[in-house]
């Protein structure tokens, strides 16, 4: 069942297309990463889903409804924007209790205590939010977003400003919300490593259009399935190794990386044949790794070349 759906969504600002016929969907319980450079239209997309903007054409629905015209449906949605959105003069406790009541919780105090304990801020519960660090506000923002146990959670750069410990806490939290609570999570992020660790599927947006949309496993597999990395004895690449490799059949390209060489093979070439040829030529090989592209490489390819997966 689809929790989030964009159908031919377009939005223009001052005659310029910020989103151009964007379509994708997110299944219930999925953790979906929405990637793109600054100005690509990621925040505009979230604002369209949340009903803060009206599409010029197409539809943006969450749980099958347009949130802009259905106040009640927003009760099942949690959101964290890039700026955390807290009253600076109110305490953490007051801020959370306020939003709990706005979302219809009769007595939010118990849940507020539970969440403040979970994010390790119980001892700062009654301090004004204005005295908190960026990371503390971010953790508190996530607590506020899940306070009312929403079905769908929109997170804009959730790890922004967090230290590694807190980043891990947020990652684990998101994974557990999806795994145990069945929550659908939509993440806008530049933090590609984080997205690769927690998201089941991603869409890459550039120039107002979706360039790729698939599971991370499929995207990275399609990116570089025929590359291997070879390290030589002694931790150094022999001077003539690059030239020798290029002269072998089945090699599409070579490039130095770290203490080894990346070899890109042509479609019919086999890695064991290449290694045998190198050994026969007298090279002493210490390590060979099949190399898969990471999300960053895939992202950069789609964003910089304007390539389209379809």
């Amino acid at each position: 069942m689809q929790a989030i759906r964009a159908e031919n969504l377009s939005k223009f600002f001052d005659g310029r297309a910020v989103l151009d016929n964007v379509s994708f969907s997110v299944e219930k319980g999925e953790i979906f990463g929405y990637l793109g450079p600054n100005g690509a239209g990621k925040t505009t997309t979230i604002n369209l889903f949340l009903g803060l903007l009206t599409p010029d054409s197409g539809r943006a629905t969450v749980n099958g409804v347009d949130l802009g015209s259905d106040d009640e449906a927003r009760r099942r949605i949690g959101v964290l924007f890039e700026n955390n959105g807290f009253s600076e003069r109110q305490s953490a406790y007051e801020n959370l209790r306020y939003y709990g009541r706005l979302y219809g919780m009769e007595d939010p105090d118990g849940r507020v205590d539970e969440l403040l304990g979970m994010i390790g801020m119980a001892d700062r519960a009654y301090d004004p939010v204005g005295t908190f660090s960026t990371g503390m506000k971010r953790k508190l923002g996530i607590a506020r977003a899940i306070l009312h146990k929403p079905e769908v959670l929109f997170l804009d750069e959730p790890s922004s400003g967090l230290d590694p410990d807190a980043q891990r806490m947020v990652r684990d939290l998101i994974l557990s919300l999806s795994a145990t609570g069945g929550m659908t999570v939509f993440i806008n992020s530049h933090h590609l490593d984080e997205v690769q660790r927690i998201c089941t599927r991603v869409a890459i947006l550039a120039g107002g259009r979706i360039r790729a949309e698939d599971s991370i496993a499929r995207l990275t597999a399609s990116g570089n399935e025929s590359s291997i990395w070879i390290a030589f004895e002694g931790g150094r690449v022999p001077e003539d190794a690059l030239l020798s490799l290029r002269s072998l059949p089945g090699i599409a390209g070579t490039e130095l990386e770290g203490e080894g060489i990346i070899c890109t093979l042509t479609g019919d070439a086999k890695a064991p044949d290449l290694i045998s040829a190198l050994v026969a030529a007298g090279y002493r090989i210490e390590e060979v790794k099949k190399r898969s592209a990471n999300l960053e490489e895939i992202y950069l390819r789609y964003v910089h070349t304007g390539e389209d997966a379809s």
Partner: protein
Amino acid sequence: MNELRTIARKEFFQAITNKGVLIAAFIFAIWFPVFTTLGILAGISGDPGTALAGHLASLSVVLAIFMGYLFSADAFFREKKDGTILTLLCAPVSLRQIWEGKVLGVATAAYGMTILSVLITVAVAFAFSPVGITLPWLLLVHLAIILPIYAAASAGIIGAAQLYLGMRENQFLGMGFVFLFIFLIFGLQTFISPEGGVTVQTELFFFVLGLVLLLIGRRWAGRLSKERIVRTIA
């Protein structure tokens, strides 16, 4: 209804704990009315109760409008300053409910400050008047019914204007708005009741005009789109 109370309660406590706004409100609430009242007492020729009641009736409306402006400008501008407006717009409440909750909370604080000012002014007048003063009962009606309406109308129109204009901290615009408000009210009052004072006729005039202004603010806020707010604050 719960959501309305929640927003109103928060706005009320934010208003009465904002030191900067409170200091400005106190100065305006005490300095201006007390000194103008002492001036009125010094020049009284007829019944001091009637003269003082007329003065208090006009003065308190000005005070309620100004207090409404002062607290409301802070309440709406704060949403932009703290970056809370987008999160609030995503909550399961309509824009009109947000406006109503804010106006209710802010107007309560503004009304309280206006009443405090009137009480201090009356106490000063009683203390410094050379003759005994008896205030008419209509003044109580004025304080209990007319003032909250004007505090709310002022807060409401300023709030709707802030939402419309992207919650910019524009003091000139705010003050211009307040003076326009005051001139409109007293211009019309002079037309309807040239002798001034507190009469059933003036109270009815104040009541109807205040209600109309409040409804204008409510209608304006209700017709605003979230898209306008999101795009103007950016």
